[in-house]
């Protein structure tokens, strides 16, 4: 697959997931935070039953950058770790897979709080 094709697929799938989230937010009047929570759980469920993995293979970042991809990474990490390490993997697997992103956000947020000022 050419890199232009990969780029277009990422755009289309990532855009479609966000459009779906926007429809849900507008129709149901849920807050963005509610929709974010819902999409993470949807990603976990889709990852668990095996329908999200083909989407990641097809669309790359288009599937892994929206929060459903975060949910998929949680489910996939847990599944891999349970197979390798047994029941303890149900606790350790998800953060092993997503810890870098979460901790990066904590570190950058702390730095931003110290060096940047919010503007109106």
């Amino acid at each position: 697959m050419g890199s232009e094709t990969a780029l277009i697929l990422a755009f289309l799938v990532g855009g479609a997931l966000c459009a779906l989230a926007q429809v849900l937010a507008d129709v149901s009047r849920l807050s963005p935070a509610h929709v974010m929570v819902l999409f993470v759980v949807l990603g976990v469920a889709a990852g668990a039953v095996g329908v999200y993995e083909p989407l990641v293979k097809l669309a790359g970042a288009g599937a892994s950058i929206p929060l459903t991809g975060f949910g998929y990474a949680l489910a996939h990490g847990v599944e891999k770790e349970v197979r390798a390490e047994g029941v303890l993997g149900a606790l350790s697997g998800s953060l092993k897979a997503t810890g870098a992103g979460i901790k990066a956000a904590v570190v950058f947020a702390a730095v931003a709080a110290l060096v940047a000022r919010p503007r109106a």
Partner: protein
Amino acid sequence: MERARFQYLARRAEPPKPLLSNVVRAFVAGGLISAVGQVVLGFFVGRGMSPEKAVSPTAVVMVFLGSLFTALGLYDRLAKWAGMGAALPITGFANSMVAPAMEFRTEGLVAGVGARIFQVAGPVLLYGLGSSFVVGMLVWIGLLLRYR
């Protein structure tokens, strides 16, 4: 005036909700952020990482970009325009932590920054980790039954 009649009139007086334009803007912004993510992913894959391994460093770079644009005051302007197109990508997850951390700095490092940083990320992590724990237990039970 009766309450029902008032509500009917009030609803008619509201501007029509621009659902279509909201959705188009979310699609364009979410698609562009994902395309940037694809470029970053391609960079790591090009340096010899497997696509699966490259997801984690890509997330870190996108979290950095989301944090940087939040600190510069640009991400919140994008979010106003793009709605879920800015909130749903992992850059929006970063924004949901960085923005309150900056805003509540004045309330102190513990009660302000520390307490508010997980305002939105906390629920996301609670339900994400909670549901993935259930998945882990189901996988474990499935493995037990198979090898009996």
